[in-house]
Structures are given as structure tokens and as C-alpha cells.
């Protein structure tokens, strides 16, 4: 138990003790440096001032806003406004120029691509990959195969209205679930899958019934993919004769598509991004190399 013995001097160190003693152990009185203490007090005073002038106290539904009216969101808005002012003249040019004009002006094209690249990273990269490389079910935007058309106007429309999205003018058209919904029998699906591989110059098993496949294709698939299987852009039906396969070209994958249907969704960005950003995105995606 602590016993109070005042102002005793410790013999070994020559330092005064605080007078506290625990089981024979006494505490030396070695106070903090005075300058240190004063700085500590100053920070306390400073923090009180800080509470008053800056937003700090959480209240029931909000927070104390502080006498300066400072807000972190305002700071961001100010920074963005400053940035916009710097980019102002180029942004104005970008918003008024047509995509064709942008392509003809090297400076404007570089600017649009830079803007588009940033917007792409923020909005498109989660599905299409940071470089537009795509993945299974998500189109590679670097190649020259376009489900809905690859002109800048087509790309712009796709971005603005999306695919099978919640938008009045969205692009519609999907692959029905022929197997699941009982429109085709298992062997018809197997045969048409073999037939599709054959028109894409992919190797086909010798036992495959290509004649049946051809018949099924003409009766069921040609409506969207065309008699020759080259696809139809206005329906988003892919070209089945080229070497690009959105979900893969294995027979099992094709059968799966026929059985369960296909229909990926891309959001409509017209409501979320402004016109200039969509224009920059259009130019950027187009100049990844697939524009035609």
C-alpha cells in the first residue's frame, strides 16, 4: 500500500521521490521538461479552437459544422473547379466537336483519348478489363469484332443506351434458351453445335450429324445469325464464322449457350456520364484498334 512520505531524497540517484511507496519500492520524481508540458497544453488549447472552427462533433443526425463552414466536399469541389478551369478550353473544344473532327485534330484526339482512358478506368474496366481486353462473356474491345457495330456512332450508342439495359432505346436481342425452354431436343442441339463449329472451320468429331445440324441451323438459328452464320449487327447476333468467340468455341460451351441461352447486360451510361465524357469514351474505345 502506498504510504505518503514527503520530499524524501533517494540516496542512490540523489533525486527527490514523489512520496509514493509500494512494497518498499519508491517512485522517483522525474518530471517532464517544462517546454514539453507547455507544448502539450498548447496543443490542448489548439484542439479546442479546432473543435470550434472546423466540423468535429457527431450529433444525432448530423455533425457540428464549425464556424468556418469548412467542408471536405467543398474542398474537393474547389479542386475540381480549378482543374476544370485549366482544362477548360480543351474541354470546350471536345464538347462541341464531332467525333470525326476529334479524330482529325491530333491535339484534340490525344486529349480525348486521355479523358476517355480515365473514364474507362473508372466505369468500364471492372467488366472489360483495364486495357479493354475483356474476358469470358465480356467483349474484348481491342479486336475488330463488334456485336452491335464498330463505327464511332455505334460505339457511342452502345455506351449511352447500354445492352439489354434499363433504357428506352437500349439494344435488345438475346439468345433464347433452346434446351431449357424445350424448343430443341438434346440431339438437335448437339448437332447444331457441331455444325456451327464446322462453319467456323473448327475441327468436328467424325460421328457428328452435320446434316441435322445444318437443318436445325437453317430453321432456328439463321433468323438471327443469318443463312451463312455471319451474324446480324442490328440484333447483336455474333458472327459465327470468324475466330472470335465471346464465351469460347469448345463444343460444351456452345451447347451450354444453346441450352441455356445467352444475353449479357451492359448498363446504359447516358444517365450517369455527361455527353463530353461519353464522347471521349467513344473515341478512346474506338481507337483501341477495333473501330471500323
Amino acid at each position, binding site marked *: 500500500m502506498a504510504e505518503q512520505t514527503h520530499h524524501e531524497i533517494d540516496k542512490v540517484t540523489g533525486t527527490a521521490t514523489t512520496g509514493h511507496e509500494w512494497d518498499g519500492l519508491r517512485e522517483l520524481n522525474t518530471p517532464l521538461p517544462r517546454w514539453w508540458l507547455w507544448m502539450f497544453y498548447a496543443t490542448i488549447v489548439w484542439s479546442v479552437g479546432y473543435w470550434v472552427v472546423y466540423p468535429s462533433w457527431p450529433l444525432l443526425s448530423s455533425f457540428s459544422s464549425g464556424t468556418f463552414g469548412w467542408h471536405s466536399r467543398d474542398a474537393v469541389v474547389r479542386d475540381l473547379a480549378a482543374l476544370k478551369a485549366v482544362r477548360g478550353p480543351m474541354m470546350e473544344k471536345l464538347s462541341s466537336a464531332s467525333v470525326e473532327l476529334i*479524330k482529325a485534330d*491530333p491535339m484534340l*484526339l*490525344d486529349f480525348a*483519348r486521355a479523358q476517355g482512358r480515365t473514364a474507362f478506368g473508372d466505369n468500364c474496366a471492372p467488366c472489360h*478489363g*483495364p*486495357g*479493354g*481486353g475483356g474476358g469470358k462473356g465480356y467483349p*474484348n474491345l*481491342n*479486336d*475488330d*469484332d463488334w456485336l452491335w457495330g464498330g463505327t464511332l456512332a455505334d460505339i457511342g450508342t452502345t455506351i449511352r443506351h447500354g445492352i439489354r439495359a434499363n433504357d428506352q432505346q437500349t439494344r435488345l436481342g438475346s439468345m433464347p434458351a433452346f434446351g431449357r425452354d424445350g424448343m430443341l431436343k438434346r440431339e438437335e442441339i448437339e448437332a447444331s453445335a457441331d455444325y456451327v463449329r464446322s462453319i467456323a472451320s473448327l475441327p468436328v468429331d467424325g460421328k457428328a450429324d452435320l446434316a441435322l445440324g445444318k437443318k436445325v441451323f437453317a430453321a432456328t438459328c439463321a433468323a438471327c445469325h443469318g443463312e451463312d452464320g455471319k451474324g446480324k449487327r442490328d440484333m447483336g447476333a455474333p*458472327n459465327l464464322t*470468324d*475466330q*472470335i468467340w465471346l464465351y469460347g468455341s469448345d463444343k460444351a460451351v456452345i451447347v451450354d449457350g444453346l441450352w441455356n441461352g445467352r444475353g449479357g447486360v451492359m448498363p446504359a451510361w447516358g444517365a450517369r456520364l455527361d455527353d463530353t465524357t461519353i464522347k471521349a469514351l467513344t473515341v478512346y474505345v474506338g*481507337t*483501341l*484498334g477495333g473501330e471500323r
Partner: protein
Amino acid sequence: MREAEVHGTELPELEPDVPLYEARRKVYPQSVRGTFRRIKWAVLLITLGVYYLLPFVRWDRGPNAPDQAVLVDLPNTRFYFFFIELWPQEVYYFTGLLIIAAVTLFLMNAVAGRVWCGYLCPQTVWTDLFQAIERLTEGDRREHLLRERGPWTAERVARAGAKHFLWLMVAWWTGGAWVLYFADAPTLVRDLATLQAPFIAYAWIGILTVTTYFLAGHLREQVCLYMCPWPRIQAALTDEHALNVTYRYDRGETRCSLKKSELLRAKGEPTGDCVDCMQCVHVCPTGIDIRQGPNLGCIQCGLCIDACDAVMTKIGRPRRLISYDTDINIKRRQRGEAPEYRIVRPRTVLYAAVIAVVALTMLYALVTRVTESISVIHERNPMLVRLSDGAIRNAYVARIINKKPQPREFALSVTGLAGTFVDVVGATRRPGASPVIEVGPDQTREVRVLVTDYDDSREHSTPIRFHILDVAGTERAQTSDHFWRPQ
């Protein structure tokens, strides 16, 4: 201490009441006239003139570059020095410049000791100017000393006030000149005057005003004695042939008063030329006595030579009792041999050779400096793309640099893959020709290059080269990369 005693050696013990550091002894250098003083004035005028006026020298670089002869353009990352324009990746020129500066300092040191310290060092030049101001306001040594020992009269306050005001003005102007090297000088002067200049300009002027005022006005010789590393390095680099400000003790000793020496001379007895008038000590800006031999505090400005020469002339003795000389020569004179001056010796030849080699290398690099270059990065996301017809395409980011003040057009071609198709986003393409990329004056442009290969038989990775050729000229540049196919 106890251990030292055991081993039989005794360490010198400091007296407990002797402080470790000497308190500053204030120096009141006396004004002096003579050859070296004139040289110092000339050097001061030239160096300060260059420093204060250089930013206003114009240099026509055409419509796309600043017209300031010497400019450190930090926002645009360019350095301009008359006909030279350096980009950030060319800062190795500064390395060359620093090597030349260092070896020149060594050479000066091998020839004439700390001649840099005495004449050219900014600390010396500004201190000299500040001391001139001090003499102007507070009077020369004697007057200044008397006034400082006397009471604070109104006159003394006025004189001290005038001194500090003038010092601050010079310091302020010094800081002001410094910032002019970082922006267009006439514009910045106007902006500064109308309080439109950026905050950083005022901040730097403030910092340099304060440092100049304290370093040149108050610290003075303390900088040379305690802060500057050069006296220490210099002592290790010098040799016995280097010219130093030297008191010729062979001629000066034994020193005695003028009266006594005339008496001895009349009797035909030997006596030294030094009459112990202390003029050499009084004029010394670092407050040393040169007669004590080589000294760390000696900046070798030669003012003691001027002071001594004046005295020698007055008493009818030969001049240069103190002069630029070497210690060996004094010993040679004592032995009755003629003094020898060897400026050409292995050390000086080596230094001169190093300077020449570095300078010529830099000159060669400057003259043959390429004004265009290309660098390429392979796009990795995705590494490659299969097109609908089965061809493989790789994308690259090519960065093309045009260091000329005119816009230029470069034709881009790729070698290493026969039958490839090269497309550049944003390039103009004439039928059947390579894509042509326009790059603005003094600019870098980044373009996306698409290389398509139709040959299915090639390796996974094929080395290829990118070439650019100035459409209007013959300048070209190239770089290498790889073309990837699926594995």
C-alpha cells in the same frame, strides 16, 4: 584517465574553466589601396554584374520557346543557357559541368592556393561589398572602433541604421535577382512590383534576403573558418609548389620598430624589413596574422600584400615583403639559391587534362545531340489480340520526342516481321506509305501503334525494331521491342 595512467601515457586534461569554444573576436578590416584591391574590385563588379543582369539578357528562340538567355523553366522542365537547351533526361550535362567546376577548383588550388576563396567565392564577394557599405556608413577601422566603444549617440544610431538598411537592400536585391532565373525576368519584375507574382517568388526572395544579410553582414569570416569545408579539403590537395600569400620571413625577420631598425641599419648590423606596423593584420578580412605562416583562416585575397607594399614604399624598402610565393622559395633564398616557380608539373597537367577531356566530351555530346528520339512500351493489357480473320495484333505506346523548335513529321516503320501491317492511331497515312506522326515544336507525343501479323508460323516472341524518319530531312532514330504471339 585511470587506464591511461596504467599504460604509462598521460592524456592532457582540460582545465575545467577553459571554454571549449572561443568567443567571436569581431574583425574591423581597414580599407586598403593597391593592386590586389583593384583586382578584387574588378572581380566584384564583374561577378555581381553578371549575377544581377544576366536574367535580362534576351536570346531569340523563335515563337515557341522563351526568349531568356539563361532560364531554369521548372514548370516546363527545360533549362536554357544561350544556345543550349536541356531536357530533364539530359541533366548529365550538369554532371560534366560539376566535374569541370571541381577540377578547375583543384587546378586553381594547385597553381595559386585558395585564390577562389580570396576573389571569386560568393561569400567573399558579398562580404567585401557589405564591408564597403560598413566603411561608408560607420567609417573605417579606427573610426568604427572608436564609435563602438563610445556611447549610443543619435549619430551612431543613424549610421548603424543606415548600414543595416543598405545591407538589407543589397540582400533583398540579391534574393530578387535569384528568382529572375526561374521565370521571364521583365514579366516577373512587373508582377513583383504589382504584387501579382506567385507566393513562392516572394518566399524565396525573403529566404535569400535573410541568408544574405546574415551570412555577408554578420557571419562573414566565420563562414570561412567554421562552416566551409573547402579549407580542410584544400589543405589535403595543395602541395609545396602552390603559390600562397606568404610572409617572407627570410627577409622580414628579425622584425623591430622602424626607429630601431634604422638605428641598427646605420650601424651596419643585420635587421629585418618588417617594422611590425600591424597593417597586414588590420586590413585582413578574416583577422589573421599572415606572419605566423600558412593559416586556415587565410583566404589569400592579397590585401595584406597591398598594405605591406604601401608601408615598404613609404620607408624606402623593396616591395613584396608579403607576396604570392611558396615556402620552398623562402628556403631556397635562405640557402642563396634563386627562387623557382613551377606551374607546369604533373599535378597541374593532370588537372588541365581532365578539364580538357570532360569539356571536349561535353562539347562533342552537345554538337552531336540528337533532336529526335523514340521509345516504345508494349501494351500489356491485353498483351495481344486475335482479330476476326485470325491475325494477331500487338499494341504499343510509342513516345516520340522532337527537340527542335519547329513542328516536325516523322514516318514510322517497323522492321523484323515481314508482311506486317502498321497502323498508328492519330497519324496521317498516305496510300502505300508509312504512317506519319506530327510532333509539335519542342514537344513529346505519345501515340498508339498497332502492329498486325498474318504469319502463323512465327515464334512466341519475335524481336522487332521501330524506326522514325524525319519526313523533311534525314534524321532518324530507332528502338527495339518484341512482337508476341499466343503460346
